[in-house]
């Protein structure tokens, strides 16, 4: 682990207990993230990417079947910490979350300024006046007029509410913010605005992002690294430039080819079939059923291969 590593996840597993059996939502996730970098976790609906956000931040429901692995934050292993210690010293202090549909997650009966100030009061024990000053600073950073502090969520547009949620995640000056689908419910112009804000924040506040999304094109705006998730597992971790130029895993390739491009001469493609159930995923490679390049080996679990610094979980790259 280099000194610059902010977050390192090793073999993270999160299974849920259900009546039908164990759902393997997160089943072997790994990646690394440096300071002031953004990693994009790409995946389709149901691949376990929102569960991954919960697993990293230990925001767990009660029906946990299995929760193992190692998470290093600035060198400290945080999976082994006591819950209370974690709550006081990690969550919303060193890393925070912008939850999915955050713009609908604001409390309708509290002023948005008070909501943004709240984490400061809880985690840093500061007085409300002081916390509000900090909240006002964050509003400026994310581009919300300061007089909006006294407004309620319903008085704000979707884009403004999303900015407020981002301000709330940043107010305690964490090193890492996890964003779960931050723009998926917004219009394309608002999306572009939010991504400009995130790009600016990365520079101004020296914060790192884990961006969880299905939106390949939008995420390329912010990404330094890309981790592709399929059926609970990471299948490729790559540098963003190299990934968008030439992804290695067959799933990554097909995913990229399915994105409709403007003024392109090629028609977008699609992936036949659908992802396997996470209740009982196939034994070998989980993408094998849909993969055009599958061969005999694919019925066994593929290893993670390092191809010039790109990690890819595929038999095609074992020499």
């Amino acid at each position, binding site marked *: 682990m280099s000194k610059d590593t902010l977050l390192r996840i090793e073999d993270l597993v999160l299974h849920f207990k259900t009546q039908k059996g164990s759902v393997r939502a997160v089943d072997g996730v790994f990646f690394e993230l440096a300071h002031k970098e953004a990693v994009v976790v790409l995946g*389709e*609906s149901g691949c376990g990417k929102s569960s991954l956000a919960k697993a990293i931040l230990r925001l767990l429901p009660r029906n946990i079947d299995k929760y193992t692995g190692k998470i290093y934050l600035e060198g400290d292993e945080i999976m082994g910490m006591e819950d209370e210690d974690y709550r006081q010293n990690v969550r919303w202090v060193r890393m925070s979350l912008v939850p999915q549909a955050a713009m609908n997650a604001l409390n309708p009966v509290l002023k948005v300024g008070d909501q943004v100030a709240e984490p400061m009061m809880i985690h840093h024990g500061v007085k409300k006046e002081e916390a509000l000053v900090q909240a006002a600073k964050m509003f400026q950073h994310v581009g919300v007029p300061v007089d909006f502090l006294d407004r309620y969520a319903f008085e704000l*547009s979707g*884009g*403004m509410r999303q900015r407020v949620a981002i301000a709330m995640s940043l107010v305690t000056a964490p090193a890492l913010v996890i964003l779960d689908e931050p723009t998926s419910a917004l*219009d*394309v*112009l*608002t*999306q*572009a*605005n939010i*991504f*400009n804000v995130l790009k600016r924040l990365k520079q101004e506040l020296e914060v790192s992002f884990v961006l969880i999304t*299905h*939106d*390949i*094109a*939008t995420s*390329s*705006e912010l*990404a330094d690294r890309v981790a592709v998730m399929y059926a609970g597992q990471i299948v490729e971790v790559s540098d*963003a*430039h190299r990934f*968008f*130029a030439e992804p290695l895993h067959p799933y990554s390739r*097909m*995913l*990229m080819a*399915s*994105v*409709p*491009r*403007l*003024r392109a001469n090629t*028609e*977008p*493609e*699609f*992936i*036949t079939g*659908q992802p396997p159930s996470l209740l009982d995923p196939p034994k070998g490679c989980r993408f094998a059923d849909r993969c055009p390049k599958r061969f005999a080996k694919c019925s066994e679990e593929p290893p993670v291969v390092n191809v010039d610094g790109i990690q890819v979980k595929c038999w095609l790259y074992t020499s």
Partner: protein
Amino acid sequence: MMNTQASNKSDLLVVKNLVKHFPVRSGLLQRTSAWVKAVDNVSFVVKQGETLGMVGESGCGKTTVGRTILRLVEPTSGEVSFNGQDLTKMNNRELKPLRRDMQIIFQDPYASLNPRIPIGESVMEGLQIHNIGRPKERWEIAINMLKKVGLEEYHARRYPHEFSGGQRQRIGIARALALNPKFIVCDEPVSALDVSIQSQVLNILKDLQQEFGLTYLFIAHNLSVVEHISDRVAVMYLGKMVELTDRESLYREPLHPYTRALLSAIPVAHPSQKRERTILKGDVPSPLNPPKGCRFHTRCPIAVEKCSQQEPEFKEVRPGHFVACWLAE
């Protein structure tokens, strides 16, 4: 392919000065206190066999246009003629036979299928309503339609919850096709689907268009999806149509500043192609009280004084290229 031929074809649907204002009621007596101007004086033509794409941000009135054309929502004023007949003047009984020719595919495949009946029955429901064939024949038509969208006979007895989003949207397409319509309003048919299967549904729509000679009004907010399926594209902003032209011209040479902003906001899935995006300031104004003059002038990067005072006319500035902007002449 289609776009070159489309210009020679006859007009299937003619929409003239379509207006839809929704009342806002408030207070104890539920008196109308204001009007939401969802669609405000929109005119366009859909030609036989073409796909007209319609794009705009949420709340711009594109869905309302689609629904008003089918009279799922009653228009406030204006004319909609289908094959030369004015739909807005018809009563329900006169309209019913025409409904066979005009169908809709809904946005949300999770909400638009009845969860309590097998999907085969959902597909044949329209045939029942229009008294077509005997029960057995209807069932056969339904199965035939399901096969057209890539599903199998055994799927017909299953319930919606047993299908994935992409399959459900294909069922929605089969249902729209069962009555052998001429015209289909596709209301954001792929927005709820994962990108990896979007193009499968788009391909099916294209193939069926060829096979049955269908005409589509394709409503979407995603300009890159619309590019792949449309012959012509219309752009809406705050209840008004601001630009309408063939696909090539719209994507190569957009004339309205709003269209340009929309196009430049589309991200490119390649970091080396990062470019400065034209970012519009502020939010879409409320359709309750739209700005005077050009509705876009409050956010327009090139607005001049005239724009805030006089409303620009939607006119043909080049052959087949309509635009509502004072500066696009």
